[in-house]
């Protein structure tokens, strides 16, 4: 699934690339509450951009401001070079797919999909042709005459998608597009959504609280908390190179440890971590003052678990006892308590059918490569 979009590979790294959607200093205040707080964001043509955040993070308010359903307190929104900050929803070159799908219950599938074209006074034969085309794309031609109450949740989702895409919007906004579907259907629909986006080359902006959804769908993700972005980057950057504690903690599982800077050179820093009872030297570009408090983070799957001490000596090695373990089929999740009471989460793949891993109260050795340790400033 790597090479899926006709996107100019990584336009966000190209200083000359012109962003397709440009958000500048956008804020929305409800009284004293800052739902969205001075956000800047550039989204490029044909991107599948996700805004990931917990409920109440302001992500839906941001989406509603893009759609024109909420007036910003301050800031600008530009789409394809046109300022749409004050344009009403019916004049914006974008469409939205609602979380509830919002299918008109008194119209058939066909009428729902045709609604946008009718409002544009598209001639009848063209409406018919395009409706047939798009229903074919979402594989719903046989349900054209059905009412929304007669079709399933997955089908409703596809009708909503077809209705939002038929006007060939420059940007499609999707509010929790898969939240109302059950797990099996969600995985299937996820890939379907990416395929359709790929075929049509439309810029997608997805708002979601589901990190798995954001990870698999997106070209880039913006992690949002309390009305601000904590980090914007590719799924890989967000996961492997989080730049602050919130992002690291919010996306995936992670072990976080407090540490203090005790020295360093131009390109590296030496830290003392009491929780791990060790001194670590990590490469770091910007010099850090001695005594500064930082965090160390390690993903559970980066830690190697063994009953014997590892032979390599350049790894961080800890000894501990299995406190708890959970079996998930494909992998097992362990919670290991080290000598000084620190609890570390480790996940191990179950590669052999009958291999017996460590059990409760077994003594085990944890080790990981220093390059897998993430240094977080905040």
């Amino acid at each position, binding site marked *: 699934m790597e090479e899926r979009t006709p996107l100019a590979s990584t336009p966000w790294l190209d200083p000359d690339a012109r962003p397709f959607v440009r958000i500048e200093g956008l804020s929305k205040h409800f009284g004293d509450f800052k739902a969205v707080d001075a956000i800047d964001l550039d989204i490029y043509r044909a991107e599948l951009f996700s805004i990931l955040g917990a409920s109440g993070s302001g992500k839906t308010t941001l989406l509603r401001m893009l759609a024109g*359903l909420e007036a910003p307190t301050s800031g600008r929104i530009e789409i394809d070079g046109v300022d749409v900050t004050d344009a009403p929803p019916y004049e914006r070159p974008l*469409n939205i797919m*609602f979380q509830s799908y919002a299918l008109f219950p008194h119209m058939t599938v066909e009428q729902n999909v045709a609604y946008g074209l009718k409002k544009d006074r598209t001639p009848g034969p063209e409406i018919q042709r395009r409706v047939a085309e798009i229903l074919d794309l979402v594989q719903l031609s046989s349900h054209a005459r059905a009412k929304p109450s007669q079709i399933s949740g997955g089908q409703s989702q596809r009708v909503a998608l077809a209705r939002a895409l038929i006007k060939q919007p420059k940007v499609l906004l999707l509010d929790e597009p898969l939240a109302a579907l059950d797990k099996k259907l969600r995985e299937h629909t996820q890939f379907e959504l990416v395929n359709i986006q790929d075929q049509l080359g439309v810029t997608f902006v997805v708002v979601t609280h589901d990190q798995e959804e954001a990870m698999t769908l997106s070209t880039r993700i913006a992690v949002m908390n309390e009305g601000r972005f904590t980090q914007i980057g590719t799924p890989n950057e967000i996961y492997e190179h989080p730049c602050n504690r919130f992002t690291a903690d919010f996306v995936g599982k992670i072990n976080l440890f407090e540490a203090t800077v005790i020295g360093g050179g131009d390109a590296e820093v030496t830290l003392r971590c009491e929780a791990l009872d060790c001194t670590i030297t990590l490469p770091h570009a910007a010099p850090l003052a001695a005594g500064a408090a930082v965090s160390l983070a390690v993903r559970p799957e980066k830690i190697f678990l063994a009953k014997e001490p590892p032979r390599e000596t350049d790894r961080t090695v800890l000894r501990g006892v299995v406190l708890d373990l959970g079996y998930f089929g494909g992998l097992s999740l362990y919670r290991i308590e080290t000598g000084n009471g620190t609890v570390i989460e480790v996940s191990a793949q179950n590669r052999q059918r009958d291999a017996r891993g460590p059990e409760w109260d077994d003594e085990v050795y944890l080790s990981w490569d220093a390059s897998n340790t993430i240094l977080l400033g905040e």
Partner: protein
Amino acid sequence: MKRHGTFVLSMMAFGFAFLYVPIALVVLYSFNGSSLSTVWGGFSLRWYGELFRNEEILRAVLLSLRIAALSASVATALGTLAGMAMARLPRFRGRTLFTAMILTPLVMPEVLTGLSLLLLFVSLHDLFGWPGARGGSTIAIAHITFSTAYVAVIVRSRLTGMDPSLEEAAMDLGARPLRVFLDITVPLIAPALLTGWLLAFTLSLDDLVIASFVSGPGSTTLPMLIFSKVRLGVTPEINALATVIIVIVATGIAIAARTMRRREARHAERPAPLGTGTG
């Protein structure tokens, strides 16, 4: 299955008798040949003939129907706007006060409403020379005032039960606010509009107290006429009139019930949705 006890059955019979025997007597006596309403003088359609020849009654019926139709229509329009404002407008200063003031007529004693409207009309007449003689138009205005509140409540509850993203979706697809209202809102609240209209119509047709306050000489609604006639003793004509009304109402209810049952049956025939609902 256990048989119902005699006690339960007799209580039920008593209850229904209490409700329906008086009505049955009215119907029965409408076919009374005698002009004394308490003495049975053999079967006759005489009073129906008298009824349809009685200009006074016919005029009252027509006036009542005209007022009811007019006030129900205006009240539905105004009540819908008020309901929209209560359900859809973002919070504004004085919203609670606005809501309370719209809903007050629901709980206001009719005597007070009638009296205050009478005073209003009298002082308006003194100041502007309008509304001139009180009559059908002042009654209609009075009825609009209180039935608007009922329509507003019905429309509001329907709107609050409706997903606001339906209207937003229509707007997003290129419909201007008025089109959204006509294409999406009106069809979806149509049942509430119909209910509101019928309720306003019935309230107006039924009202005696307020109409008595604000009507003038020469404009007598049906309830006012019946009330004044009954004070001089129940005439068999009124029995005939009551029977006609009962037949009309019963037919209306029967038709409504049948339509509802048919619609439910149609819904039941449909296949149930396969997957999860839309939430």
